[in-house]
């Protein structure tokens, strides 16, 4: 391997006696988007949390730019995350939420960057509105903007299409392409097969905590993918 980007080797995660992840290894290079598919409960979110150092793996190791990540300190500044929650404060405005996260990440020229991001995710008109008044889709746009605010080099996204309308989906795809174009590495959990296969470079299929399938998005057509997915999971996609 090249030593750049993110690598995970032999990751296992147990909760009590239940083994949620078993021997998961992956590599993610700069300028690459890797999709993770799999049924509910497969362990996708748990894998993302382990990679984000939000929870410790029971076994295995994570490398960032060739060095082992221990408590995540080396990784955190370079990483943007979209999780199940929005990480937003409902009583703060969109702008205040971004200003807050910008301070945590010590973003330079913060006010300019915040209005730039708000425009980019199409929320310029609502900058001064409290997040509590936002629709689910607007919150998701702001969540994506928050994850990109500090110009991360690694993006971990857990079902980021949730709640987005068609325009929001196209926007997210544009942003992902732009991010990859700038040399960013992205891990993308998704149930939106068509869109995700279109934007991603590679995909993994996770089933019962194991990697049960993998492929290149460019080389696999929709019918091939459906067959691969069914082989891996035991049921067709959708």
């Amino acid at each position, binding site marked *: 391997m090249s030593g750049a980007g993110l690598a995970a080797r032999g990751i296992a995660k147990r909760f009590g006696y239940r083994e949620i992840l078993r021997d998961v290894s992956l590599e993610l290079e700069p300028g690459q988007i890797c999709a993770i598919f799999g049924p509910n409960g497969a362990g996708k979110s748990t894998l993302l949390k382990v990679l984000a150092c939000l929870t410790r793996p029971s076994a295995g190791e994570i490398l960032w730019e060739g060095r082992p990540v221990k408590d995540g300190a080396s990784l955190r500044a370079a990483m943007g995350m979209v999780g199940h929650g929005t990480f937003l404060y409902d009583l703060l405005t969109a702008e205040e939420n971004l200003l807050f996260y910008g301070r*945590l990440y010590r973003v330079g020229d913060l006010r300019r960057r915040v209005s730039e991001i708000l425009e980019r995710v199409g929320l310029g008109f609502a900058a001064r509105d409290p997040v509590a008044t936002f629709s689910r889709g607007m919150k998701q746009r702001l969540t994506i903007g928050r994850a990109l605010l500090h110009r991360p080099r690694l993006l971990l996204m857990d079902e980021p299409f949730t709640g987005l309308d068609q325009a929001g989906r196209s926007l997210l795809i544009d942003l992902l392409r732009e991010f990859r174009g700038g040399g960013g590495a992205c891990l993308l959990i998704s149930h939106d097969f068509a869109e995700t296969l279109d934007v991603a470079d590679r995909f993994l299929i996770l089933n019962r905590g194991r990697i049960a399938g993998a492929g290149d998005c460019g080389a696999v057509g929709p019918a091939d993918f459906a067959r691969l997915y069914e082989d891996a999971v035991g049921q067709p996609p959708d």
Partner: protein
Amino acid sequence: MLAKSMAIVWKDVVVEFRAKEILAAVLIFAALVALIFGFAFDPVEHDLTGIFPGLMWVAYFFAGTLGLNRSFITEKQNDALQGLVLAPGDRSAIFLGKFLANWLFMTLVELILTPVFFALLNVSFKGGLLLAAVLALATVGFTAAGTFLSGLAANTRASEVLLPILLFPLLVPVVIGAVRATAGAMAGDAATAVAWLRALAAYDAVFVVVPFLVFEYLLEG
């Protein structure tokens, strides 16, 4: 480190300014307790000076627990606490920020309510600067221990019940110190007041430093 904590303090102050949840709950509860004490102990017939420090601190600590319970609730909504944990820098900075914000809110409440307590319990106002020092130091110990346990209890289901059960036993030294120091300050006995202030400062040091060291491990999901 400090930048992260200060960002959290700023955020908590703005949120509190909008919601007024913590200040309103603590102010109203403590003021009601003062009123009830007024009826129960009949300050017109009896001189309450002797039990005044105890009454005041019981009210502040019980009321303050309501506020501490709220402190991590905003962080649990939308998984915001995960966002704080993911941000660069020590996780201890999260404790420091939340503690400073809670200390600010609690001190503000006490500044408003202490004159009210003196008036409602018909005790002449005494103590001045020494009393201010007691309020400040006792509130450090109370909010530091409280913020720590509030963070600890935040990941459990019954956090509202758990917090007082864990917190009150730990607070015994602060209660004793605060009550004795307040009594000393009110009696004009500076030597006694300062001796108890020292004890409070020692307790404060422990309850600021220990959470600071272990918060790193506390926030594991």
